[in-house]
């Protein structure tokens, strides 16, 4: 039950206040009825609401939503325990899904539809979580300044030849933490640390801002190479701001490590919570999100790649070509996360 259902705007401020007062003393917010599903999501409302609305339209199942930052939502879910109203947890990276699983906040579910739709690398073997979109983190370069033939691997970015040419965001960010975790998995902790030191020495400026800022800095000439997730570039290409579009226009996408393990990818995904009271509807919602039509929209809405094979990608993404993705089991990103952070601390990666 929500404020809006309690008191439509036409009822005036007094009724609204009464409704608010009712919300203050605990209302049974978690509907027990089978026609509802409660979602905790660290994916922003903008990126999932249209799909959730379509789900409601098609099935008549109402979706209640709280969005928030991943870690704090996990904490909320974990503390609420078995009584948590949430049926479904949606996050923007696999590391957090793994963390929710190890904290006992999720449950394994089986769904043939999901097993068929999602490649095994992108879901938990016991059905605790399912990847829904792929987020790739390739090397971006300024066309005309960098010859893509001079690029090869993430590892090679530590080469002194790139001194003062690279922009990357702070190591506070989970994308970098996951990327370094994948390098620890591939190269070992020692090599990864040496690499991180080399990378820091090659930075054009101290890390600051988000991924878009790295792309903008490259386009403006502050650096020639940026490491960023592709959907930020896609977002800039589709932006209403002409400056964003022209900045994104000079950037090329290079898929690294294609001879080896492949480019680093992460997933956004969903997990059924341990205490889910609407387990069946929660599974139905994941299945809906993994269906071909949803996959196409879901991936396109944020410039990400569909997790389901055979789904068409948007023209912008298609222009960057296909790539080989690192087949690393994504749980490892979660397991190695703390090691990655320590390593970056030692390397002086801000």
């Amino acid at each position, binding site marked *: 039950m929500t404020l809006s259902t309690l008191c439509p705007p036409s009822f005036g401020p007094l009724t609204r206040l009464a409704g608010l007062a009712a919300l203050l003393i*605990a*209302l049974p917010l978690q509907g027990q009825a089978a026609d509802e599903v409660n979602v905790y999501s660290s994916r922003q409302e903008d990126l999932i609401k249209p799909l959730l609305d379509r789900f409601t339209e098609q099935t008549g199942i109402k979706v209640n939503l*709280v*969005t*928030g930052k991943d870690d704090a939502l996990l904490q909320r879910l974990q*503390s609420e325990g078995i009584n948590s*109203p949430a049926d479904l947890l949606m996050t923007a990276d696999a590391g957090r899904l793994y963390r929710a699983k190890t904290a006992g906040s999720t449950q394994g579910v089986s769904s043939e539809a999901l097993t068929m739709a999602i490649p095994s690398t992108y879901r938990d073997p016991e059905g605790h979580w399912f990847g829904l979109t792929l987020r790739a983190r390739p090397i971006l370069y300024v066309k005309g300044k960098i010859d893509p033939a001079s690029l090869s691997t993430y590892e090679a970015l530590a080469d002194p030849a790139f001194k003062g040419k690279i922009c990357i965001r702070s190591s506070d960010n989970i994308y970098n933490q996951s990327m370094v975790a994948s390098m620890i998995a591939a190269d070992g902790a020692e090599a990864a640390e040496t690499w991180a030191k080399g990378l820091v020495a090659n930075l054009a400026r101290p890390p600051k801002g988000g991924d878009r800022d790295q792309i903008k800095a490259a386009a403006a000439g502050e650096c020639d190479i940026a490491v960023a997730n592709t959907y930020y570039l896609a977002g800039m290409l589709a932006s*209403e701001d002409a400056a964003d579009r022209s900045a994104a226009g000079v950037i090329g996408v290079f898929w690294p490590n294609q001879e080896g393990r492949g480019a680093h990818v992460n997933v956004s995904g969903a997990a059924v919570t341990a205490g889910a009271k609407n387990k069946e509807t929660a599974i139905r919602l994941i299945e809906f999100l993994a269906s071909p039509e949803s996959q196409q929209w879901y991936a396109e809405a944020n410039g990400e790649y569909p997790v389901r094979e055979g789904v068409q990608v948007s023209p912008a993404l298609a222009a960057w070509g296909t790539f080989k993705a690192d087949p690393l089991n994504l749980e490892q990103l979660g397991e190695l996360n*703390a090691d990655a*952070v320590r390593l970056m601390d030692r390397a002086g990666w801000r």
Partner: protein
Amino acid sequence: MNLNPSARLWSTASVAVALLIALPVLVVLGFVLVPSGDTWRHLAATVLPDYVANSLLLMLGVALGTLIGGVGTAWLTSMCQFPGRGFFEWALLLPMAMPAYIIAYTYTGLLDFAGPVQTNLRALTSWGYGDYWFPEVRSLPGAALMLSLVLFPYVYLLTRAAFLSQSLCVLDVSRTLGNGPWRTFFRVALPLARPAIVAGLSLALMETLADYGTVQYFGVSTFTTGIFRTWYGLNSAAGAAQLSALLLGFVLVLITIERSSRRQARYHHTTQRHQAIRRHRLVGWWAAGAVTFCLIPLLFGFLIPAGQLAVWAATIGRTAIDGDFLRLVANSLELAALASLLALLFSLLLAYGKRLYPTRSVEGAVRLAGLGYAVPGTVIAIGVIIPFAWIDNSLDAWMRARFGISTGLLLSGTLTALLFAYLVRFLAVALQTVESGLSKVKPSMDEAGRSLGLAPGQVLARVHLPMLKGSLLTALLLVFVDVLKELPATLILRPFNFNTLAVRAFELASDERLADSAPAALTIVLAGLAPVILLSRSITQSRHADPA
């Protein structure tokens, strides 16, 4: 002091309420007891020196910025006459309506290498990258500047109220003793206004310590960014709690220095006489200087960022003000109204409890209750989630075992939890204001009331409240504006399908979609305008209403 039962009851209630408010902070600090392995050693060997140095430098920068900006403008607008003074009087409060992370995003958009200012500069001069020096906004000095721009109104507000309520006789005496306006300012007015200045400054500094959005975006490693990195990145709640404890240590040191330095002094007024202030008329260059001095913080703290937001909002046009958007506005306003009322009630209870019964336990508890203001909102939210969920789950387990019914979660995920978090976070604002108001009321007034047979509650209602009207309104409006801007706790604690303006603005801005976030951000600013203007009027009027 001779205590009667009702005073004892009052003081017991104060301690109980203060401890309840302090609970979330204590819960987080409790994690210190969990073994943290070698996390602390790792932090100390790598990043901790940076956290300490950056936090200290940031506080130093904000202290300088808010003192110069806040005290200077307060003196000019209350004691001098120059063109536009009446306008600046209220307009200088406007930056308060601007959330720090929004101003940080806005200036980055404007001043970044790829932003319009530098791009135009390069187009004009045909310079390229590296050909010229340009101040880097995303840096430690940049962060100090951003925070100063939105926090100086705290100092301005409280200092100006203090200047206005200063007995003119004191200033007149100073002048008849041959002191010029400068000497009077530095030797008499400034020392007299010290409690107010320090109260405003400590609010600004605590807000600085709690800031996460700005420093995180600017890549400045401080305690707050360190706490999150340690908690989640290193997966060490204990390490994060140790950092939080150190952060609170900073705050306690600040508070202690301030208290001990004014131990001997008393600041209440002894005269009843007030005359209309005769403002110094500034002319020529002096007047121009005063206008410039007041215009700079207003321009950079409000006009430019608000203008940029308006431009962005206009380019987004399609995001029309629809029903959903109006609901966001209503949600924000209702939460802010409720939270500020509650904060006012609780701060009155605590401040008055302390006045009635100023023992160590009451003072200590009250001080503890104010600590939440220096703690980042997310940390508070987690400190609220853990005990609330524990209470809910324990009750549920007990009811199941006893009666076979499940009560589920009664507190978690309700607006009660959220309002509680606001109280924890912002009580200090109301408390500081009410306390500083109360400190100006002579103790002899209490004694007179009590000797006439009034109970403490009656003294408060009949004697103090009418005298405190200005301070109470100030406390109310300050919390209102703060809640309107609050983000991290709202994000985590709100019920299903419940959004506010700050949530909407942040979700879009954090996805680096500044333009899309502009309508919501601008609305926060606009919604904050009305209380800010009210605030200013109330202070001007209280000058005539408040007997000293």
